[in-house]
């Protein structure tokens, strides 16, 4: 919403400076977005006369001018390049030190080709008041030498633009803005009232409203014998000052009413409208050439005003070209109506029309001002164009509802923390047009018709607080009381945090990718369900909710690869979706390693360069699980698992087949190819929600530590086994021999090749035996060792390596 200071002063008797008014507007909720103050920006530019213009001694195209800047000052020497610089010309002068907006420079005293120049004669473009830069400005001979140019050219009216919130339809007119400012002590509100105009004859045009839900009120009046033409200067200046184009008096009046009184109107050339008016739904396929020169194809959701020729106007949005008023108009129909806000908004969006009428009607205009608005417009038409008015046709029953709110005065203190005296509350509300009755503790407050946004007690509190000033609300410490200081994060929140830090500590870099991915990628990773496909995706590759973090991470890895960074280890911890219910959303932690980004470090290095492999992914997954508090002893690793990983180089992490926590391995080459990524890619994903909750313990004390007094004994064994036998089975077999004595089994060597038969491999384990009650004799240790060999042999079919 734009208006000028002088326009505001038509409605507000005030001497307050612009800055103060602007600050106040912002502080009462009418946020000033921009002030264009040409008078201030152009204050240094004055009207001057060129006394003489001589050829520059050293430059063909330059002239040396002596300039009379007025006020009895000595003539000033200016070097000027404009072809029209000549003796006697009245133009615009700026002294050294002036900021030239059109050139974005501050002028200094200059010496141009050996001749001093103490200022500048300016073009209109240099002042940014027009595009014209063909020479310096030429002003009429009666322009006062020495006067400020901006004042003389009537550029002195600052333009204020406010960012209006959608609830304040009353401030889509300058009148309403002035009312708010008056309540905030910024001056006296001028509200002389509107006198009705007596019709001289019945209105010959009848109005039928087919659907009152779309049009709760409609008022119409004919003015006969008008003479349409350019508006008077005051009206044209009003409109041009805020960037509107004057058209003719009748049209200008409607625009003026919209901006002055938040009352959009429409004028039809009565001669071009045949028959009576019907307000109705458009018929599917009906067309209208609108005033913006575009033809709109309508459907039954659009509300129109139609006559015998068909649609004449898009109700509340834009008139039709065919019935528009021009200089030949002699009889004018003035329409002032009420429209359904939602329908206006939807129609405007659908047709892509942003008109001043739509802007107001979709916010909901003051219903009680429909008829007075028509009266005021009629008066303006008669004043500017003459003519004789008909009586008004008014369709509709009630224009606005009476709203009275029972308001406990304590409500202000309760919600806002301030306690203004009742007299102050009453003063504020009265200025805003409310009426307050009673002395309390509960008063009755009648809401003015134009404040359709005020419905309840909280709204009244807001009115009082915003005018008193939110800055007057004292900051009040918010005590946390004696609530115990307990951890506030839930289990999953804690797991999420720890998973991130654990992965970053493994050298991986956290990223955040899109929650939505391309459908084929979603399908590849087990997603792509119909209920997870967006109806209105922003792009075809951001169409489906992700079933896994990996597709996004693969794309991110490839993007880095394409930038020349091949050795990357990326991870993400975030939401994945298996359905559209809350319980179908999980938090996953996933990572991708590519190139020389192994667990040892990123990139090549003299100390050892290793390409990332499936064991890095396994280690990443285990780091997440350990950090997130998973029961590590209970985890089982099952080879293979998901279709998007290499069948021979991947594993599934589970606690029993019913609870799969995640998987790791090398991305399947087919998956990499489908995602347009260069493999090999090393991947893991763990679903943090699936980690069983740890048991709550009554205290934080750790279990008692038992330290054995006896030295542990270590024994090494190497087994030759079939290549397909899993190391994990050997470890488990060895461990199972005596769970009390055997405290650890580690694999310290895996060998295939020379010395070992084809199809076989050698696996060496170190077994730690921890005596508990006494030192073991050699015979006892040998007995345990023999059992280990027997058990491993039995379970795996292997034999002790000779």
């Amino acid at each position, binding site marked *: 919403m734009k208006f000028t200071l002088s326009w505001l002063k038509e409605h507000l008797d005030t001497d307050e400076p612009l800055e103060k008014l602007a600050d106040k507007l*912002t502080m009462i*909720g009418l*946020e000033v977005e921009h002030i264009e103050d040409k008078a201030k920006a152009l204050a240094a530019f004055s009207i001057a006369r060129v006394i003489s213009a001589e050829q520059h001694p050293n430059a063909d195209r330059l002239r040396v001018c002596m300039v009379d800047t007025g006020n009895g000052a000595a003539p000033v020497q200016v070097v000027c390049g404009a072809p029209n610089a000549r003796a006697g010309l009245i133009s615009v002068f700026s002294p050294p030190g002036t900021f030239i907006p059109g050139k974005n420079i501050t002028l200094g005293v200059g010496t141009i080709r050996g001749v001093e120049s103490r200022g500048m004669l300016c073009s209109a473009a240099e002042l940014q008041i027009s595009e014209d830069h063909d020479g310096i400005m030429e002003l009429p001979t009666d322009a006062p030498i020495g006067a400020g140019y901006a004042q003389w050219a009537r550029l002195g009216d600052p333009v204020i633009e406010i960012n209006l*919130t959608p609830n*304040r339809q009353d401030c889509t007119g300058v009148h309403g803005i002035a009312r708010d400012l008056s309540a905030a002590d910024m001056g006296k509100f001028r509200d002389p009232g509107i006198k009705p105009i007596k019709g001289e004859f019945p209105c010959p045009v009848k109005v039928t409203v087919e659907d009152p839900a779309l049009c709760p009120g409609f008022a119409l009046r004919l003015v006969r014998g008008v003479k349409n033409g350019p508006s008077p200067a005051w009206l044209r200046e009003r409109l041009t000052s805020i960037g509107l184009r004057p058209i003719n008096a009748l049209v200008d009046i409607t625009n003026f009413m919209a901006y002055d009184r938040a009352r959009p109107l429409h004028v039809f050339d009565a001669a071009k409208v045949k028959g009576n008016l019907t307000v109705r739904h458009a018929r599917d396929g009906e067309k209208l050439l609108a005033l913006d020169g575009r033809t709109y194809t309508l459907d039954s959701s659009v509300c129109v005003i139609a006559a015998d020729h068909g649609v004449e106007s898009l109700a509340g949005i834009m008139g039709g070209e065919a019935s528009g008023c021009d200089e030949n108009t002699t009889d004018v129909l003035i329409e002032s109506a009420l429209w359904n806000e*939602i329908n206006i908004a939807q129609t405007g*969006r659908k047709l892509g029309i942003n008109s001043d009428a739509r802007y107001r009607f979709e916010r909901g205009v003051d219903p009680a001002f429909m008829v007075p608005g028509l009266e005021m417009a009629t008066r303006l038409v008669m004043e500017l164009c003459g003519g004789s008015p008909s009586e008004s046709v008014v369709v509709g029953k009630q224009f606005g509802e009476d709203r009275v709110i029972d308001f406990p005065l304590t409500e202000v203190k309760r*919600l*806002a*923390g*301030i306690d203004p005296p009742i007299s102050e509350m009453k003063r504020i509300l009265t200025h805003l047009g409310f009426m307050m009755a009673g002395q309390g503790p509960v008063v009755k407050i009648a809401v003015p018709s134009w404040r359709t946004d005020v419905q*309840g007690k*909280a709204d009244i*509190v*807001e009115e009082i*607080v*915003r005018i008193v000033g*939110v*800055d007057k*609300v004292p*900051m*009040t*410490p*918010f005590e*946390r*009381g004696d609530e115990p200081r307990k951890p*506030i994060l*839930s289990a*999953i929140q804690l797991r999420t945090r720890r998973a*991130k*830090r654990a992965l*970053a*500590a*493994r050298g*991986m*870099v*956290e*990223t*955040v*990718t*899109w*929650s*939505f991915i391309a459908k084929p990628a979603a399908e590849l990773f087990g997603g792509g369900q*119909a*209920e997870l*496909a967006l*109806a209105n995706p*922003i792009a075809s590759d951001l169409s489906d*909710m992700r079933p896994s973090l990996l597709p996004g991470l693969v794309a*991110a*890895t490839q993007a*880095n690869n394409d930038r020349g*960074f091949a050795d990357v280890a*990326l991870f993400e*911890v975030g939401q994945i979706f298996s359905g559209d219910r*809350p319980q179908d959303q999980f938090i996953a932690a996933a990572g991708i390693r590519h190139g020389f980004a192994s667990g040892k*470090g*990123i990139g090549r290095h*003299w*100390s050892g360069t290793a390409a990332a492999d499936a064991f890095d992914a396994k280690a990443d997954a285990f780091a997440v699980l350990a950090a997130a508090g998973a029961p590590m002893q209970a985890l089982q690793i099952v080879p293979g698992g998901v279709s998007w990983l290499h069948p021979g180089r991947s594993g599934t992490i589970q606690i029993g087949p019913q609870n799969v926590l995640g998987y790791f391995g090398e991305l399947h080459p087919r998956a990499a190819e489908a995602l347009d990524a260069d493999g090999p890619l090393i991947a893991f994903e763990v679903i943090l929600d699936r980690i069983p909750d740890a048991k709550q313990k009554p205290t934080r004390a750790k279990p008692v530590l038992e330290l054995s007094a006896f030295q542990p004994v270590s024994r090494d064994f190497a087994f030759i086994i079939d290549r397909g036998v899993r190391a994990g089975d050997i470890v488990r077999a060895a461990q199972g021999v005596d769970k009390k004595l055997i405290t650890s089994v580690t694999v310290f060597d895996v060998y295939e090749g020379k010395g070992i038969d084809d199809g076989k491999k050698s696996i060496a384990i170190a077994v730690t035996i921890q005596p508990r009650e006494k030192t073991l004799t050699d015979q006892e240790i040998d007995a345990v060792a023999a059992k280990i060999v027997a058990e491993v042999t039995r379970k795996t079919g292997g034999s002790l390596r000779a």
Partner: protein
Amino acid sequence: MTDLVQLESEILDQIAAAGDEAALEAVRVAALGKKGSISALLSTLGKMSPEERKTQGAAINLAKDKVTQALTARRDILKSAALDARLASETIDVTLPLRETPVEQGRIHPLSQVMDELTTIFADMGFAVAEGPDIETDDYNFTKLNFPEGHPAREMHDTFFFNPKEDGSRMLLRTHTSPVQVRTMLTQKPPIRIICPGRTYRIDSDATHTPQFHQVEGLVIDKGSHLGHLKWILHEFCKAFFEVDHINMRFRPSFFPFTEPSLEVDIQCRRDKGEIRFGEGEDWLEILGCGMVHPNVLRACDIDPDVYQGFAWGMGIDRIAMLKYGMSDLRQLFESDVRWLSHYGFRPLDVPTLAGGLSS
């Protein structure tokens, strides 16, 4: 006697000439071993007369002691020389550059770090963290939050929708984290003090908007919290988050469907070559919206607005992260460029704490 003197002198010469420990050992064996020259002399003592044995014995033992001492001294010298030689051969090039450890190379995304910072600050003020699903119903995202029918946010061009179900209802991607407030109010009795950080979605994509972004909202419901408390909390938060001693904030009346009164909050700042300094300057920068929870919202969540009251606020995590850490382009937060992530990301051990500082 001359023989003994000569023998001793010969042995001492041999000791001095021994070049390594093995040669020295050979000298020792030749002199003091079972069949050594001095051992042989000692074995002759038994055949001597007592007087002769007395003088000869003393002389031979004296020679033996001298030889033994010389052997020990020589052995120390040779051992030390051998160690020096070995160490010289073991020299390494200590200028070889180290590999950065994983802890130095890994990074936490700025958004994660800022979420941890927010949590730390609000936990200290007694707030819990609530979360909810990204895929929401129209009811929780709009209706219960007092969005009127026909509100532009409910249109397909503002909000991501899923396809309609058989009953005509359609799920959507939440446009703010306010549905978490609704879920909390429906399941928890006041007093309520929560923050709701999370991912949100709107159809928007340009230099300052991305289709997904992150918000943190706060909600307080009890029997006495008012605008003065809200102002205090936000003021304390801004000081703590931006890590400044003082900050000027401006609370402006505004409008949101779910709060009444509603306020927008600006902080005073100075912009200087892409850097923003808070607590000084002439510019006002809008950072959040807030207000008293609208009575209609309370009613929709089965809370009596005449008994309970409270306030809520919401701000963009991406935005405050960018402001604090000087990141200029929102889109880079989601572009996974390792150069950007390494530069703007945080080290894994830099966990924000109140005791140690949020960002240091």
